[in-house]
């Protein structure tokens, strides 16, 4: 699996992401600087988490307009796989590759802890290593993860199985108490219409081996390896 990890100023999760990709796929990913205009020839483009441009204006707003994003959008439109985690998810919504927006958390706090996710759709390149309905543990670390979209968009996402990950409690129950940031319908991760772009707020790259306290997040990367080997 050949992967590129796009690095913007202010991003801080790129090393964790590169390590997770390397450990799970066996191939070191290629870091790409935001000022570059062209991506290398890769199967997967990853936009990691952090605070690109200090979250100025809106989270991900400036990064979404940086030079490399033209090629990210072009490759996404060709069907290349794109994964955005946390700030990467925000950048993907700001760039128009994913619908909706990530608003300030409902309780206004920066939230940094483990949450549970329910795998709502495992027929995607980003979730096929899990069972449908499987409950996984995953860390979150964000201030603006409150997913919002208009009612029509939400209905489409739900109807088309494009809500891939949803916040839940440890038993898999989707409750308001388990909705960590106030996202509509407890949405944690969504897919674009074509099914090749996924954005999610939680950080699966931080839970890929027992040294990190668990490996529930590994499935995201195993799914990608499987999808690209097929």
């Amino acid at each position, binding site marked *: 699996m050949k992967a590129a990890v796009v690095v913007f100023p202010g991003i801080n999760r790129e090393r964790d992401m590169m390590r997770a990709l390397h450990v799970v796929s066996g191939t070191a990913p290629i870091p790409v600087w935001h000022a570059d205009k062209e991506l290398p020839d890769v199967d997967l483009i990853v936009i990691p988490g952090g605070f690109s441009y200090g979250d100025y204006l809106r989270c991900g707003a400036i990064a979404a*307009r940086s030079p490399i994003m033209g090629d990210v959008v072009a490759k996404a439109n060709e069907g290349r796989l794109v994964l955005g985690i946390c700030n990467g998810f925000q950048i993907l919504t700001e760039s128009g590759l994913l619908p909706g927006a990530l*608003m300030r958390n*409902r309780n206004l706090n920066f939230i940094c802890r483990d949450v549970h996710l329910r795998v709502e759709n495992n027929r995607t390149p980003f979730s096929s290593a899990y069972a449908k309905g499987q409950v996984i543990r995953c860390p979150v670390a964000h201030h603006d993860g*409150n997913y919002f979209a208009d009612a029509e968009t939400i209905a489409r996402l739900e109807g088309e199985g494009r809500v891939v990950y949803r916040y839940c409690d440890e038993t898999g129950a989707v409750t308001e108490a388990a909705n960590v940031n106030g996202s509509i319908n407890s949405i944690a991760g969504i897919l674009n219409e074509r099914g090749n772009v996924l954005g999610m707020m939680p950080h699966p790259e931080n839970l890929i081996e027992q040294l990190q306290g668990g490996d529930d997040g590994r499935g995201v990367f195993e799914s990608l390896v499987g999808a690209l080997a097929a």
Partner: protein
Amino acid sequence: MKARVTITLKNGVLDPQGKAIEGALGALGFSGVGEVRQGKIIDLELAESDRDAAMKTIDEMCRKLLANTVIENYSIDIV
């Protein structure tokens, strides 16, 4: 030419910061405050001297960067 762009959240978009301000005003004893909504103001200095051309350019700036029209409305005032 100077212009001011005012960006507000669309109706129906949850504004947790506005809610927090609302609660804090109540805690300070200001009664009778209804809903509070928070927005932002961006002041621009432009070389352009033609008003219509400036409006057109700023409108494009708003759509491309300054506002996220999924969640925000914007208005432009030439000052």
